């Protein structure tokens, strides 16, 4: 992110295309987020079940 003192630059089309590809790759993280969510949920339910 640019600082307040510096005017932002304008990216060229190649950079923009790279950015789209990078964002598409980065978006795959939601798969891992959901997987971690599932694992945490399963772990919590197992622990709660064991404590009953």
């Amino acid at each position, binding site marked *: 992110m640019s600082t*307040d003192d510096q005017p932002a630059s*304008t990216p060229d089309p190649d950079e923009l295309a790279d950015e789209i590809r990078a964002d598409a790759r980065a*978006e795959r993280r939601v798969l891992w*987020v*959901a997987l971690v*969510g599932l694992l945490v949920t399963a772990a*919590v339910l197992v622990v709660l079940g064991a404590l009953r």
Partner: protein
Amino acid sequence: MSGHDALVVALVVLVLLGAVPVLAGILQYALVPVHAWRNHLRDAAPYLPRVVVVVPAWNEGAVLAASLERLMRLEYPPDRLRVLVVDDASTDDTPDVVLAKAAEHPGRIVHLRRAHGGQGKAHTLNHGIAHALADDWMQALLIMDADVIYRPDSLRRMTRHLADERVGAVTAFIREGSGRPGSVARFIGYEYVTAQAAARRAQNVLGAMACLAGGAQLHSRANLEAIGGRIDTSTLAEDTYTTFLTQLDGRRVVFEPAAVVLAEEPDSVRALWKQRVRWARGNVQITGTFEHVWFRRPWPVRRGGQRLGSWTFGVIWFSVYLLPVAIVAASIGLVGLHLVAQTTALVAFRSLWWLAVAAYVFITTVTLLLDGETARRSWFQGLTFPGLLALVVMSAAWFPGLWEDTVPGLLGLRMSDAGRDAWQLALYAWPLLAMLLAPLVRACDGVRALRVLSVPLLYVIGFGPVLCAITLDAYVKQWRGAVAVWDKTEKTGRVVG
């Protein structure tokens, strides 16, 4: 089947109704990982159209200088970006602030002043949209709020989706960005991750978007012209209305999670209540206005892509819209079962709340992981979102006897049979009680001597139940035909980004 059995079945059905919003929440979150591959980035392409930004402003002198300056620093070709500030007859220093900025950036910021204001945001926007459409220069139009701070890369991350002509509008992720947020703003920050970063990813997957964020909606010129060149002025949810029109006219609406903008949100319960009653009343109006759309798939598809009439989208929409009804139904069901079939009541209660615990853990974990910045600010608000007493109810469902035997036993006490009965009834009715107690939080916030109690009460009762109570209040106001006025949410320029 005897009358008693029929009554038990009816009460169990009421409890099951209470499970529908929980299941809908899980369904929505189950769609989030699908966004890893089912998103619009594959059809996006480098595209930097000539954009007109319309900023509606009524007494926004405190916030405009910062937001305009950030617009001027966008990583976007300066010759392809113009800003129209539509001054709705402000009585503060808004004109001076805008004119000063216009002088700093000649030709890039324009001050449009309405002679007579006060008609509401939609009218103000229409003044700017008409001005922008009158000129062929504009290829896309960005509607924002005066306090919203755009990150340098946010606009170009939105415009790339308009390279696909099937897309009519794009919305960004609005993150609560107050510099020193209080508890209410932190709760809203967490809520925005659930309602935007999570829910709108799910809606991208479904191909049906519920709402373009009012502070960050980018329209193609073709879309604006197709939906009539103006924003609807008859509802309190003009952004939702525009979203629906766009999709029903055959164009897609896309949520871009990587385009992040920062906004200042209410930091008191009273301000929150005012803002959300307006939103909820708007949703009541939208639900009625588009009654022909719900659960009607296949809706006549003109150019494909819109799925507002799908069952999945309908269930998600109505699980939010009718959440207070589901809560009332489940509470009546459990209390009724307690009176006529105690064992069934206990099984129903534990099943419902076990499901709630699973949903709570899954949704909270995913929400906190989805947006690290918000998680750092609002993790405690995420954990306490349902309310501390709801966590007590969850523990009571998981550990029978914990609150009736174990805890009193630690204190050398023993709960009487009457006490157990009252406790059980309170557990069964808690969701309803929380919703009915929520106005107390607002009332405390409105009395200077009691204001200090409003935040602790908010944590005890829960932000979720407060939102449900606001929705219920909106139902009542709509049903009574209360005057629908566009109350502005006061902004003070707290956003830091």
